[in-house]
């Protein structure tokens, strides 16, 4: 008896383009391939749709047909290793970067990074913002030892292309895409404000370095050093507070000797 394991292995090969499984049958055996196509189509279509849900701007930029072709190749190379489709697709930006036919679209992998980060932010854990009075009181007591906990959805992307502006141009009612003379690197803050609103904001690179340092557990004072030139602390803190992204404040435990 063929074991079930051999059956499943053979079935997968059939899905990937091989002939229908040896033991597959039908009332009219001449129809087996046509019938098995339903499974081939379901798998390919289902996974392509799942990828399109993560990367709608990529689908718009490439066009549906081109996206479908790229998606099929990606599925073959990076099939889901999880039953949770919202967690599948993280390798797509790097895949686009390596795809020879897309080398002229340098911004495309960056737009995909934005969409993946937005998806992560959408599903990130919930956290309530810290009350303004508590933040103020802790800041006063902590002095240079103030630490801030940021919302679990906070992500900073330092991109070499204006992919944030390009992403925005692909949204309904979005601005025109950047012109050649506006072509410059962009730093993005991607996070979720409250339960449902995912923000995608172009910020100064110094603000990005500051937020990244806070996320890594640095004090506000050290994060400010990391931010470097052209940094506006008040503007950066206001950005975080206005978007309800500061969810905890504490005092660094010093190793005073």
């Amino acid at each position: 008896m063929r074991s079930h394991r051999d059956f499943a292995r053979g079935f997968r090969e059939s899905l990937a383009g091989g002939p229908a499984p040896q033991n597959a049958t039908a009332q009219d055996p001449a129809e087996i391939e046509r019938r098995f196509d339903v499974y081939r189509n379901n798998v390919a279509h289902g996974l392509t749709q799942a990828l399109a849900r993560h990367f709608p701007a990529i689908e718009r930029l490439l066009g549906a047909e081109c996206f479908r072709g790229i998606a099929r190749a990606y599925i073959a190379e990076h099939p889901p290793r999880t039953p949770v489709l919202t967690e599948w697709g993280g390798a797509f930006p790097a895949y686009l970067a390596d795809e020879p036919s897309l080398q002229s679209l340098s911004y495309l992998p960056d737009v995909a990074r934005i969409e993946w980060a937005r998806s992560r932010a959408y599903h990130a854990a919930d956290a309530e913002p810290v009350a303004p009075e508590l933040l103020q009181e802790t800041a006063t007591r902590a002095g240079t030892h103030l630490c801030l906990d940021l919302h679990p959805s906070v992500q900073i992307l330092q991109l070499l292309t204006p992919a944030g502006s390009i992403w925005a141009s692909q949204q309904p009612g979005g601005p025109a895409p950047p012109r050649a003379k506006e072509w410059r690197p962009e730093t993005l803050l991607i996070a979720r404000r409250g339960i449902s609103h995912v923000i995608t904001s172009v910020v100064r690179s110094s603000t990005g370095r500051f937020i990244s340092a806070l996320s890594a557990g640095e004090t506000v004072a050290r994060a400010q050093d990391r931010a470097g030139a052209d940094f506006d602390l008040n503007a950066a803190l206001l950005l975080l507070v206005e978007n309800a992204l500061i969810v905890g404040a504490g005092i660094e435990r010093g190793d005073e000797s």
Partner: protein
Amino acid sequence: MTLPRKAGLGFKPEHFPAISETKPDLGFFEIHAENYMGAGGMPHAMLERLRADYALSVHGVGLSIGGPDPLDRDHLARLKLLCDRYDPESFSEHLAWASHGGVWMHDLLPLPYTVETLSLICDHVDEVQEHLGRRMLLENPATYVLFDDSDIPETEFLTEISQRTGCGLLLDLNNVFVSCVNHRQDPRAYLEAFPLNRVGEIHLAGHEEEELPSGPLLIDSHGREVAEPVWALYAETVSKTGQLPSLIEWDNDVPDFATLMAEAERASMILSGDHDALAS
């Protein structure tokens, strides 16, 4: 704790505003477990609200109960977390497989019904029920091919699983119709052989039709209204079983909420024995 013996709907996030505003008279909502496995955000906020107002059915599509691999422990843990958090009236999965060698195909794939697969699936169902600490329902599949090494009829296979593991069955009448038409069998004979006393829920959905040289090939698409012959099977079935929790599944090309409600209302009328509901 069981689902109310009334009509229910598959929950679609785009309908959340309509549901919150109108609080429609429905027995329950059903969700796909794998869509609620993120850490937080809108999916859980909506589900909490929904759960507060309605009975809940959690329907899994990713356990691969019919697959050769051991059940994924991480996935079982995620399901347990979800079930513990929302305490649904029902948890169900499929007589199908979806993963092999750590790769998920994300489709409900068919399998031969043999002594070997029977014993494997019973072990998997036992493991799920033990892990979740609750009885599950197992759903009959829609299939497009058969296997020449299958030597147990599907109805007997499901009966045996249910008897050995104590699990209930989810009777998908669209799947019965689709499979029977595809394999040139009589859906009424299938239902005669189906252990109706083990059924904890009924599914109703729409299908698409293609034409093969030998006749129609029906495809379980969940993308349109329930077909008339499936409504007829439904009326015949509930006349035998009495009222059962009955779900309208519409997962693709999702229409507005009113259209879904009309389908649920038709199911309600049939459940309450209104025979005019058959002649729409």
